[in-house]
């Protein structure tokens, strides 16, 4: 990698790379059901930057939220601000099974070559009942992957144990065994359309439904072998491998606006602005002062005030 590309890459966190690449999958006007964390940030970037008419939905029952901040949980109260509809999980997922959700965003832990995902448990030397690592389970992901018209998986790519031959537990149905197997299982949604990571974008072959590497960031053009090495099976790479733009200035501006706590900019929890307020106030010594509450309050309120009046697109 030459020096110029190295410097370019170092401006972004892996999460920012994945989120910005993922946001570009949303088309303006689409109904987008988002999960939490990275997938929520991704939907919100799209709405701020290029899809102002997208209707963002969360499973807690928030429909058409404006996204005044990236949500930690699907029912964060600030997610309910400026919604056009408050309803139930029951209704949202019924609407999804009916076919109203154009695209769903979810993260993944283990994924196989047909886009099936495990977010339930890593068995390790144990089993389902006594796993080495218990994960979050389905959440809305099992429902979104079943019924959204298309599904986008998003996460930061790890060296091993992520793109695997065999899942410990299939939590999100993708294309099952490939070819027509998803259709034969009577799943209503269209299945995964893309897997977005900080190392590239993967898509699925039309016939076989096998995953292939479709796009990479400019600094990874010569690193395709390295990416293939992170995948347990023999990963196919498209002949006309595309180069994706690094995060664009407007996308980075969106992240800044959406994320005053810098969750997606500063990896270490204790180095973020909110934690600094708490540490300065003596949190580790068990102290709790009104000043901590007031400063954290002001940090978010000032950001929300700006966002409430923001015209879209930014």
């Amino acid at each position, binding site marked *: 990698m030459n020096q110029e590309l190295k410097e370019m890459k170092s401006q972004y966190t892996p999460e920012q790379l994945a989120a910005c690449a993922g946001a570009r999958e949303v088309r303006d006007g689409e109904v987008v059901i988002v999960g939490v964390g990275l997938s929520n940030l991704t939907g919100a970037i799209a709405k701020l930057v290029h899809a102002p008419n997208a209707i963002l939905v969360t499973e807690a029952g928030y429909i058409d939220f404006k996204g005044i901040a990236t949500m*930690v949980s699907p029912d964060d109260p600030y997610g309910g601000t400026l919604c056009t509809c408050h309803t139930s999980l029951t209704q949202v997922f019924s609407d999804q099974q009916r076919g109203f959700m154009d695209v769903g965003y979810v993260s993944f832990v283990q994924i196989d070559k047909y886009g099936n995902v495990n977010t339930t448990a890593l068995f390790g030397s144990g089993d389902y009942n006594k796993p080495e690592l218990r994960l979050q389970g389905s959440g809305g992901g099992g429902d979104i992957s079943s019924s959204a018209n298309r599904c986008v998986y998003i996460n930061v790519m790890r060296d091993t144990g992520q793109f695997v031959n065999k899942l410990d537990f299939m939590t999100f149905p993708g294309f099952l065994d490939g070819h027509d197997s998803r259709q034969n299982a009577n799943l209503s949604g269209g299945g995964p359309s893309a897997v977005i990571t900080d190392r590239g974008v993967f898509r699925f072959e039309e016939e076989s439904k096998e995953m292939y590497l479709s796009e990479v960031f400019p600094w990874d053009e010569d690193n395709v072998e390295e990416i293939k090495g992170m995948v347990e099976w023999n990963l196919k790479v498209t002949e006309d491998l595309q180069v994706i733009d690094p995060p664009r200035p407007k996308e980075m501006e969106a992240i800044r606006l959406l994320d005053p706590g810098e969750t997606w900019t500063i990896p270490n929890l204790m180095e973020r602005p909110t934690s600094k307020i708490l540490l300065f106030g003596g949190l580790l010594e068990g102290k709790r002062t009104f000043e901590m509450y007031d400063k954290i309050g002001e940090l978010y309120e000032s950001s929300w005030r700006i966002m409430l009046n923001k015209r879209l697109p930014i």
Partner: protein
Amino acid sequence: MAEKDFKTRLDKLMTEKEAVATFLHDGDSFTLGGALASRRCFSVAREMIRQKKRDLTFVDTAAGVETTMMVAGGCISKLRLGYFLMRTAGVKIDDTILRAMRDGVPNPLEVEDFTQYQLAMGFMAASMDIPYMVTKSGLGADYLKYNKTIKMANDPFENKPIIMVPAISPDVGFFCVQRADRRGNAQVFGDIWADDVKSRACKHVVIITEELVSTEVIQKYPANTLIPSYCVDAVVEVPFNCHPMSCYGCYGGYFADYTSFIQFVLAFGTYEGALRWLDEWVYGTEDQFEYCEKVGWRNLMRLVKMERSINRLPE
């Protein structure tokens, strides 16, 4: 009193201690309203730990940090869930659940996985008193392999595979709402999660309200009465009952009272830390009012101000 008798009373007001003692018995199954960040009645979770409830089955679409708290408190022997919060704010808080699953500490924990919509369908079936509901959610995945309560069959009309979720009817559900009257007409604002069907699926329903209001206030906005009085067995008025998390339109924070939340998360990194936290914040307080006193009323009012800057209930 028989099931029906509780529901027909005109004044259902009780204290939280009474409600937990009356409706939740060892070995029962139960659910909680709301979910992760909003409208989850943490005060009830703390109270059932104080009352040393045992061998409970918790069934819900999503479990937040209150579940980890209840498992650490030794209350839970079975979880039937669509979502577990095992990691938050970049910190793992899975030690308590893993110890229970793997080592049976403080007691063995059985787990059943569903998707959230499957659970909503189970609650819906119970809410209509029919044996099961069907859904396409989870077809082709591994739920059926490990969860023996759900089945797959071909539907008799089109002969295509469909998942059948049996009626799920918890013995009791505790639902945090923003406001309710004495008879139990309960209004919800913001997120609803699956409380529309859960409130009808439970044998007994306890409303935990942030504010007790007159029926005239309820009548002004009848569309927000998610749970009408005929579903309800008891009404408890408890302020800040979702603390350390939020309650839409009442009090917020950055998804939670971030100060309390981070203390909680740092403590729950290990099971031992969780026990120390329980000693201080649950066993160390007599009830919700002492708990609030310990958090600090002035601090809590700052969270009210924060929420009101973006969401307000219609008055």
